[in-house]
């Protein structure tokens, strides 16, 4: 039996033979029907789930790290423009200026990452031929298309004082101020959408760790965006104008940490994807950096260097959170366990509920694969 092709040994008569425990590397977790875990276990592995040669069912995302980087830069742009708008409203000129500059830089980087990641970058404008509410990427395109120019105008308006006071450029100089104000408000108004739609972008896939995260991911990304915006401010802005950034750093970091904790522990099987090798390291780094950054933001009120270090930690934490979530999704789509086990459990439950527990001779539920329609019991439409 042990030499048989994995995942194929299940037979009608053969009992629960099938399924080497693919991907179930950590003992004790997710091990239903466990049995002893000694050396003996290797001889007759417990049937946890069945698969086709242990192959992935889903295709992992073909996105490169550009997309993970974009999750970060998009959030940074959003967080910075919110702080810039606050500076604009409360007369903190340095905060406003730095926030606008960071925002434009980050949104330009975002555009680069998004286009570079396309399989056909020269066709990026095909995104602009439709507005499609069912596609978070389409909605995101339009959010960026609104945010980008607004952020750009706001940042450019900071150059107005460099223009001569007379002539055509003088007119531009006078117009840029108000245009910058409008742009600043426009960017700030779009910023929350820019920061949180990326969570929907990832969640609206079959990728288990992303999809199962959907109730929490927007809060993780929103918090991460605020923390990174605050982090950039702590680096770029003189101490006397960083008060709001420090408070925002604490709020954002708290949301980011709490949300990440939920992702790592409360999603059932999908949470295990966050403890696969690569995502685990990234999430751990994110936790330490973000916590240190938030603490540093509170403690470094009098130190420009300390503030900059705290800011760098917040930025690093945000970056690691994005890459961690991204990698967890990839890990969860490479292992069929994350797809098969929850679905099989759902089917078995449904079959039991319907009393339609037709079974194969070996006792596996059969009806779950084909619930007769006259079992008027519809599938539960789960609202999360």
């Amino acid at each position, binding site marked *: 039996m042990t030499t048989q092709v994995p995942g*194929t040994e*299940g*037979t*009608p*008569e*053969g009992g629960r*033979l099938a399924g080497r425990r693919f991907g179930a590397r950590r003992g004790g977790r997710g091990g239903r029907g466990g049995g002893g875990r000694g050396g003996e276990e290797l001889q007759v592995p417990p049937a946890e789930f069945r698969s*086709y040669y242990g*192959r*992935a*069912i*889903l*295709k*992992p995302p*073909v996105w490169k790290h550009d997309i993970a980087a974009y999750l970060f830069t998009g959030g940074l742009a959003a967080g910075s423009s919110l702080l810039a708008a606050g500076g604009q409203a409360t007369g903190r000129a340095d905060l406003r200026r730095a926030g606008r500059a960071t925002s434009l830089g980050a949104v330009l980087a975002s555009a680069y990452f998004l286009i570079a*990641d*396309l*399989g*056909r970058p020269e*066709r990026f404008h*095909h995104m602009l*031929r*439709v507005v*499609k509410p*069912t*596609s978070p*990427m*389409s909605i995101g395109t339009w959010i960026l298309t609104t945010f980008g120019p607004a952020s750009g105008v706001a940042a450019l308006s900071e150059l107005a004082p460099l223009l001569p006071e007379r002539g055509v450029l003088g007119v531009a100089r006078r117009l840029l101020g108000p245009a910058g104000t409008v742009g600043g408000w426009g960017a700030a108004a779009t*910023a*929350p959408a820019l920061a*949180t*739609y990326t*969570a*929907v972008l990832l*969640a*609206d*896939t*079959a990728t288990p760790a992303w*999809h199962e995260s*959907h*109730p929490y*991911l*927007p809060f993780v990304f*929103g918090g991460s965006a*605020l923390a990174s915006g605050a982090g950039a401010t702590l680096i770029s802005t003189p101490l006397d104008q*960083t*008060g709001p950034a420090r*408070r*925002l750093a604490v709020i954002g970091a708290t949301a980011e940490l709490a949300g990440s904790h939920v992702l790592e522990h409360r999603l059932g099987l999908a949470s295990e994807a966050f403890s696969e090798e690569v995502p685990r390291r990234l999430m751990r780094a994110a936790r330490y950096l973000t916590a240190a950054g938030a603490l540093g933001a509170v403690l470094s*009120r009098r130190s420009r260097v300390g503030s900059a270090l705290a800011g760098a930690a917040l930025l690093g934490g945000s970056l690691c959170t994005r890459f961690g979530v991204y990698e967890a999704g990839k890990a969860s789509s490479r292992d069929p366990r994350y797809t*098969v086990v929850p*679905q099989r459990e*759902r089917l078995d439950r449904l079959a039991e509920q319907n009393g339609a527990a037709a079974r194969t001779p070996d006792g*596996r539920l059969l009806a*779950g*694969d*084909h*619930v007769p*329609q006259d079992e008027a019991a519809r599938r539960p439409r789960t609202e*999360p």
Partner: protein
Amino acid sequence: MGRTDVPERNSFYGPLESPAVDAGWDESTSRMGFFTDTSVCIGCKACEVACKEWNLLEEDGLSMLGMSYDNTGMLSADSWRHVAFIEQKVARKPPTDLGMPQVGPPPTQVDPQNMPLPDLDATTQSPDGPVDVRWLMSSDVCKHCTHAACLDVCPTGSLFRTEFGTVVVQEDICNGCGYCIPACPYGVIDQRKGDGRAWKCTLCYDRIGDGLMPACATACPTKSIQYGPLEELRETAAKRVGHLRESGVEEARLYGDDPDDGVGGTGSIFLLLDQPEVYGLPPDPVVTTRDLPAMWRRAAMAGVGMLAATAVAFVGRRS
């Protein structure tokens, strides 16, 4: 009803009479699909070859995968049909030596240099009955879902619903964003390396419009792959599974035929002889878009939270 500009209640999830009509087509064309009856598949891979020939798909790896006769491995950008081979030993308990007196020559010392060949009779006629190999073969293909996640998430409109209710990529529009690939709950659609765009089965859109059958169904020598109006195929499939079960093939079951399932039923339905996951199919896939309204609500809440947090940060001591 009658209003095609407003999505119906079940546009994103649940049973839907006609996905083509839902997408704005008139009702003159019936929904077409595949019925893949794996109980008569002989694993000849004619479907794979015919598909590659007709659709001019590139060679995508000549490798020995060590998975029975399956060296294709999976559906991909250049393999739109994939025949799975599953060898199952229909094994009972191994024979137990009860120490009963035996008839025959006395046991001799086995010479390690001269090991006897396995005795076929000993394995096919154990005391508990015959040991057998069950060989499952199944030709997988795009499911052409009623609620197709790939189509829902496509940001360019490259993926579209045809008048036949199938889902097709327009290659002159696709910009290779890759979003459809993790969205598909079956792992069907994929990016072609070096080309950058997403590719998958079109249900031979360029044939069925002219009244031809898709290449794979045409080539299939055992009618394991049947093509036709989905409604008829569903009837055929129901009859066939009933017949098989009556004949004692209790493990026969249909896959994708239920309009109440997570994708609203598929345009490609299958008769399987074991659980779907054994064939590399998800047991109970759900279109991700089902949860999209909930996702947007949560994002909106988080967004409002960001604004509130910013406001709070700027209130308070001036520093």
